[in-house]
């Protein structure tokens, strides 16, 4: 991009992209740290993640202000228009990712006070895959690479499968020993949150594809779970 006759326009678009990248990096590390707090039973880290969500919210506001300003003053067209609309959408997805990560951290705080349950091991695996997807999507954004975004989008299937199997595993645990129910319920919600983060990451991938190619991704997103609601429906974070 770049090379606008108006150089200030370039600078503003650049700043928008940088803010998105920073937001993405922050969301990714929030997820990493939330998982880390859960696995390492580190309540301090979990508290820091919960507090860190503020930063992402602030960045989302900044993106909103920037886009409104650009739309009003520059009358963007074509690729610029798509870049600005995409930034708005990506920022709201990233903000949701941040919220889910914070929710994972909150639950980690609770889980740290009760005994460990077995399936905790599956959570970090799932979290790692989702964090990877986020990283790939962010790379695709920085490089404006639609193919990379498409590849990341396909990986969501993996996450859904992992979520489904983890769900079954947790139900089994709860049926075996009702004392596990509290911990397992929390884990179930954590898994659900991570799965939702994956969905938002795929949304971002779709947006990047639209940004680069100007068209939505053809075909439906591969769905492997039979239980998750469609990703379009936003749900309250429990």
């Amino acid at each position: 991009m770049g090379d606008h006759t108006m150089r200030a326009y370039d600078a503003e678009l650049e700043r928008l992209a940088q803010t998105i990248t920073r937001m993405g990096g922050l969301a990714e590390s929030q997820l990493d740290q939330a998982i880390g707090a859960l696995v390492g039973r580190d309540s301090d880290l979990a508290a820091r993640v919960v507090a860190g969500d503020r930063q992402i919210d602030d960045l989302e506001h900044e993106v909103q202000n920037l886009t409104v300003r650009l739309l009003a003053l520059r009358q963007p067209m074509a690729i610029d228009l798509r870049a600005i609309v995409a930034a708005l959408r990506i920022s709201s997805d990233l903000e949701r990712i941040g919220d889910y990560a914070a929710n994972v951290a909150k639950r980690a705080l609770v889980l740290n006070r009760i005994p460990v349950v077995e399936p905790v091991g599956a959570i970090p695996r799932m979290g790692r895959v989702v964090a990877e997807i986020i990283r790939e999507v962010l790379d695709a954004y920085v490089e404006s690479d639609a193919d990379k975004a498409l590849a990341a989008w396909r990986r969501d299937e993996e996450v859904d499968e992992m979520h489904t199997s983890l769900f079954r595993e947790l139900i089994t645990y709860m049926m075996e020993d009702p004392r596990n129910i509290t911990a397992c319920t929390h884990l179930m919600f954590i898994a659900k949150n991570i799965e939702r983060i994956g969905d938002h990451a795929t949304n971002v991938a779709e947006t990047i594809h639209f940004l680069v190619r100007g068209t939505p991704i053809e075909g439906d997103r591969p769905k492997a779970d039979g239980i998750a609601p469609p990703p379009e429906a936003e749900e309250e974070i429990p």
Partner: protein
Amino acid sequence: MNVASKPALGQATLDDRRLAKVSARDVDVFYGAKQALKSVSIDIRPNEVTALIGPSGCGKSTFLRCLNRMNDLIESCRVVGSIWLDGEDIYTSGLDPVQLRARVGMVFQKPNPFPKTIYDNVAYGPRIHGLSRSRAELDEIVMTSLEKAGLIDEVKDRLQEQGTGLSGGQQQRLCIARAIAVSPEVILMDEPCSALDPIATAKVEELIDELRQRYTIVIVTHSMQQAARVSQRTGFFHLGELVECGETEQIFTNPRHKLTQGYITGRFG
């Protein structure tokens, strides 16, 4: 960048050119030795507003003026290729240019009412083409034309005042009324709002949108926002070539050609 050999991106032409209201194929225009248009092929669809955009000197106005043979007035100008109006070649079929201009009206960049009364301005075309047999009939034509041009409420009590005494926007709508009065099939507009303020521009644009019901409109504009607001299809000209043509929405959200992209986003070399 040379795109001369390739046809324009997007759906510039229809499979059957007889479906188009105006159809141009391989139109070259020369001013003396200088080539102003290179192999332009485009189909203008009926009852649509087609916007032609592009940087200054790209040939969009030249092309517009080919459609009613206004270029004939320039001696050094030579037109090659074929332009059809309803399947009839306007350059070779023996259609009289004077008759052609009654069917293809034109509105110019600067509002140019005749220094006559408002009534006479609108009545001029019908008079020279003998469209009315009586004074009452002529009155009728003038009033309906003014009404279609959305000017009737502003001027109905002052038809005998000078047309040049109106405001810029009113003058331009008077010019549109004047063009409508000869019942053309196609109206060509050459940057009709470039001399108008935003409110007058909005009124003219609203009018263009209404006129689309009855007429086929081709508009040349420097304002991409205007093209985006009023047109259904947009063609992008660059250095005498039609680079890209397509649905306005597609051109402005997702242009196919790098040049179009550069032009509409303000990254022009």
